[in-house]
């Protein structure tokens, strides 16, 4: 399993972008389940469901797909909530089988900061502690390269 060496398991994933909206509005897009439903996932309005208990220790769950066999999504707990400024939550990738079996990756950590910039907001996501276990399951940067042909195979 040589490829595992190249998996950046401990490196945080950092994505930053500017949005022409106030920090309060952008923060609300991340924390209001109705808003989350509209944008989070494969594309706009692609989520199956979103639940949010916005308080420290409160649980969140975003279900991407659900069919008769299983549901696939993400879940975790809020660790830090500073409205309009910062949101920190734990993150796991979860598959629920219809028979009740649950399989999940270990928790990683997502920190989202909202910084006023001009008339808008800079949003920075730092996804850290994506451990080798996640990589082993195929989650994380290094794996995607290993699966170039997979999408093609499944599409055909």
């Amino acid at each position, binding site marked *: *399993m040589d*490829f595992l060496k190249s998996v950046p398991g401990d490196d945080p*994933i950092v*994505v930053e*972008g500017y*949005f*022409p*909206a106030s920090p309060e*509005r*952008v923060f609300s*897009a991340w924390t209001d389940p109705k*808003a989350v439903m*509209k*944008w*989070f*996932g*494969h*594309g*706009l309005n692609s989520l199956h469901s979103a639940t949010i208990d916005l308080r420290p220790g409160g649980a969140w769950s975003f279900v991407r797909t659900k069919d008769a066999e*299983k549901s*696939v999504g993400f879940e975790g707990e809020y660790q830090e909530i500073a409205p309009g400024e910062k949101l920190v939550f734990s993150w796991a*990738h979860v*598959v629920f*089988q219809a028979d009740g*079996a649950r*399989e999940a*990756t270990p928790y990683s950590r997502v920190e989202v900061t909202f910084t006023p910039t001009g008339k808008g907001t800079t*949003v920075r*996501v730092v*996804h850290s502690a*994506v451990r080798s276990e996640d990589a*082993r*399951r*195929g*989650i*994380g*940067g290094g*794996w*995607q390269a*290993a*699966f*170039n*042909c*997979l999408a*093609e*195979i*499944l599409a*055909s």
Partner: protein
Amino acid sequence: MENLDTIFAALSHEARRKILARLMQGESRLSDLAEPFNMSQTAVSKHVRVLSDAGLLVIEKRGRSRHCRLNAEPMKAATDWLIDYQAFWMQQFDNLARHLAKEDD
């Protein structure tokens, strides 16, 4: 789900992904698989066995030759777990930008 590790291990080798990509175009005789990959028959047979153990391909014996064909079902289980988080978060940012712009309308 219990064989997910086997599936990922099987998919982790470039030669095996190439074999799968080749079988995507249709089934092939085991003896014909080696040629385009510049691999020995022994090496190909070894890779084919790993793929077959993971359920990713099916080997059928017809007369004296063995035919390999793709079995995509286990790969569907594997894709539940496939996320490139860098690309994932970039897509989320793109979605968010589109969502906020829509709200403005």
